[in-house]
């Protein structure tokens, strides 16, 4: 396997969990694997343009998120619908995860991305870098989203 292929395979290995969880949140159960493959292709095509200004993991997430948002838009407009996202069997093993997925599915692309990145334990700086927003804007929105979730699901 050539070096670049080995490097790419390592990059996929290191980020597989995050990429799969992202793909599952931006595509239907029937086509999340298509989205994941599309993300892999975009990562391969863009790897040479990675300039090292951001952390590699942040850059990977940015490529994946941009690809996922475009994919979701195409699919939604093709199906001609404003229909809510189909949760399907998204591999949930816990009830709380189902609740979380339900909440994520009710959000728009940007809010969903914010919450997903927080769930992946990315810092506010990294989230701001991925979305091209200021740290303050990320902090404000994140607090509101968590409050919203808490009011809806965590409080009795």
């Amino acid at each position, binding site marked *: *396997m050539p070096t670049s*292929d080995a490097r*790419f*395979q390592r990059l*996929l*290995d290191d980020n*597989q*969990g995050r990429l*799969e*969880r992202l793909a599952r949140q931006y595509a239907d159960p029937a086509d999340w694997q298509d989205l994941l*493959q599309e993300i*892999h*292709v*975009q*990562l*391969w*095509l*863009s790897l040479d*343009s*990675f300039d090292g200004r951001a952390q590699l993991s942040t*850059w990977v997430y*940015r*490529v994946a998120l*941009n*690809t996922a*948002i475009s994919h979701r*838009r*195409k699919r939604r*407009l093709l199906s001609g619908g404003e229909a809510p996202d189909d949760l399907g069997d998204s*591999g*949930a*093993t816990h009830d*709380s*995860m189902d609740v*979380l997925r339900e909440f994520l599915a009710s959000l*728009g692309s*940007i809010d969903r991305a914010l919450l997903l990145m*927080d*769930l*992946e*334990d990315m810092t*506010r700086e990294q989230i701001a*870098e*991925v*979305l*091209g*927003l*200021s740290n*303050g*804007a990320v902090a*404000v*929105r*994140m*607090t*509101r989203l*968590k*409050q919203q*979730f*808490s009011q809806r699901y*965590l409080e009795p």
Partner: protein
Amino acid sequence: MTWKDLQEQWKRTAVTPLSASTAQDALRRAQRLQRLIFWRDGAESAAALVLLPFVIIWLRDAVRAHLILSQASAVLLLGWLFYVPWSLWRARRLLPRNDPGLPLLRYLEMERQAMLAQARLLERAAWWYIAPCALGITGLNLGNYGPTRGVLIYLAMMLVLCVLIERLNKQKAKSIFRRRIADIDATCRELTALEAAPDDTHTTRENRDEP
């Protein structure tokens, strides 16, 4: 159940194991995509090359026969044969592949520009793609045979076809590209609104705080 617990559970969610050939598969798909783009780009140039000798022969015959209208029409066709591949090449060159490694807002702006350019190309296709060819062929026939009934019918049919294609393309551009552009605009507005949202929570909590 706290947010921290949810975070931990989320990261423990089972994922499909990656196969050893995933990188190779992605590479193969990327190469297939690049080949597809290459052939799509080359098709216009290949078609122009095939037609080029015929148009040159028509031009030569028109010059020999001193038929001004036929000469002008052959020159129009010749120009069209170069113009179509060139304009497609230029459109692609002006809009290089969008880089998904850009921050989201910048990426969306680039995507919007690409959609707009594609929508415009499609909306005007009847006039830069079909009309010059139809006009050139009509002019050649008019120059060679005069205003025969057949030539006039052909001209009328081409005019109707151009108008029809323009309408259909406009509809298609509206239903595909313009809708996507509206959706991109909505996402950009969402991002801009987030950036402008006042901090009325007065929070200095760190990223991993509980809600």
